[in-house]
């Protein structure tokens, strides 16, 4: 099991998360991440049967308590203008972003 988030791995995570840090912040964050990992490693001591299911939620979600699916009908939004007004850059009701860099897919 990987025991430590190295500087290289940290840089990779920072890139995936689309962040940027100064060295001081990076040091604090990497230290805290590794401290949290130590706590997470406690879980290795838990004896786990193959049959123990993965719980993605706690309370059961049976059909009786699930809301029924609604009809698939078009419901217009009553305030699209207000929603667009929240965007940092809009032109002719289009949200504007800077150039999207091209990457070659392998």
């Amino acid at each position: 099991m990987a025991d430590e988030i190295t500087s290289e791995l940290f840089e990779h995570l920072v890139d995936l998360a689309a962040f940027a840090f100064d060295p001081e912040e990076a040091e604090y964050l990497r230290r805290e991440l590794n401290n949290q990992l130590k706590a997470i490693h406690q879980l290795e001591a838990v004896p786990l049967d193959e049959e123990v299911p993965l719980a993605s939620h706690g309370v059961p979600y049976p059909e009786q308590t699930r809301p029924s699916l609604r009809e698939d009908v078009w419901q217009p939004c009553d305030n699209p203008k207000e929603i667009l007004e929240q965007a940092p850059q809009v032109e002719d009701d289009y949200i504007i972003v800077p150039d999207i860099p091209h990457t070659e897919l392998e």
Partner: protein
Amino acid sequence: MAILDQSAYVIAYKVKSGELSAVAVLEAALERIAAVDGRPGALDVGGLNPEDETKVHAFITLTADRAREQAEAVDARVKAGEEVGPLAGVPITVKDIFCVKGTPSTAASRILANFTAPYTATPVSRLETAGALTLGKVNLDEFTYGSSTESSAFQPSTRNPWDTTCVPGGSSGGSTASVAAGEAPLSLGTDTAGSIRQPAAFCGVVGLKPTYGRVSRYGLIAFGSSLDCPGPIARDVRDAALMLSVMAGKDPHDSTAAAVPVPDYLPSLEKGVKDMRIGLSPDYMQITFPNPETGEMERQELPKEIREAILHAAEILAKQGAEIIEDVPMPNTAYGIPVYFVVSRVEAASNLHRFDGVKYGFRTQAEYQDLREMYRKTRAEGFGLQPKLRILMGMYVSAAQYSEQYYARALRVRSLIRSDFEAAFDPEGVYRVDALLTPTTPTTAFKMADIYGDSVLMQYADQLTVPANHAGIPGISIPGGIDSGGLPIGVQLLAPDFKEETLFQIGHAFEMATADEAWRGLKPRVLREN
């Protein structure tokens, strides 16, 4: 008694009967806020002045105009003899993680500081329809990520009304402090690991985490989607029950809001605890946490005053006719935090990818060449350190090569935590308890800045509350005493899925039976000095 020191139940009763006007209630609330709250949280405020250190600072945004319109509407209906809702004229505060239309909805983060919500969260709109007056949005840890409210980008962060050198707890610290200081009788909070119950304990108020799915999450800015629960904060159990009855129930906007009927909680309050089985577990009388010096895990008994408060509560309930079942094993309690370090981080990382400077919120003012650089600069400037830490951890433990050993394992241990509760509550099992009685927190409120920055120790403040979030069951924290330092001690009750009624019943019986105890007469220091 001052208007704002009365319960929501009494205020609504008086407003409905015409004895008190909603506008008068609002005036009283605004006066109280002016007396105790100090300046509201804001970005980039620099240092604190000495006066800041004596104030509560619950608010980020005061919405007095909205509340005034609501109050005038309530009064007009009363005057016209029309029906008004069960919260007629009751001032409420809303944790600033809920969207309220036309109101800044910041999540206490720079990245949403300029965001004005285009719609209102379901629990808020239900409270407003019931006649509540929305005073405004109150402070929290940034995106709810903390247990002290100190990580808010909006400073000064909230202080504990019992002792303003202490934290109010968190993340719903602004909510619990505003209720403790009598700025509002009710507040809407959220609980993902204990964020309602822990600050309720620290501020000496009642806080309920409902069953997952009991209250709609529509309009709640998401953190841990499988754990988040909106819930009521109040000064007594009746008010919490009243508030839940207004908010709970299915919602076409949230498919996880369960289609389970909402009982009328108020009549059952008086049923008492006779013949109820209430469990105590040794696993909740200790905590396991990493020694800050060595990093080694250590097990420690809880402070004597906290243990004694729980045993005292058990005695009181036994005298009322409950049967106390000792030694209920909850062996996986200590794994609640390690599981949370994985599960909540994965969910947070997933939920926080939407904040990118494109659709809403903050966009960097720095120069950028392309989209990716804009994302990086926006997120680097917009998020504080705690959200960044959570996103990075979430990405790490869910990465393809590690997810089996971390994420899948954590989800299996989550099953075990749920099994502990199922075994304790099983009507055909060995223990057959109606509820568990535990401390809410391992300590009373800690000093400002004492723990902040140590993300591991801070997380362990939630050790006794987080198992209920993993399991999805409801839990309530009620005041159970005051320690020798003058700070409130919280008593927690935990019940099976959708049995909030049981929690209210026990909590109310405890309140009635302890009404004459000396500590009940004590008031938060900010109210003694005013």
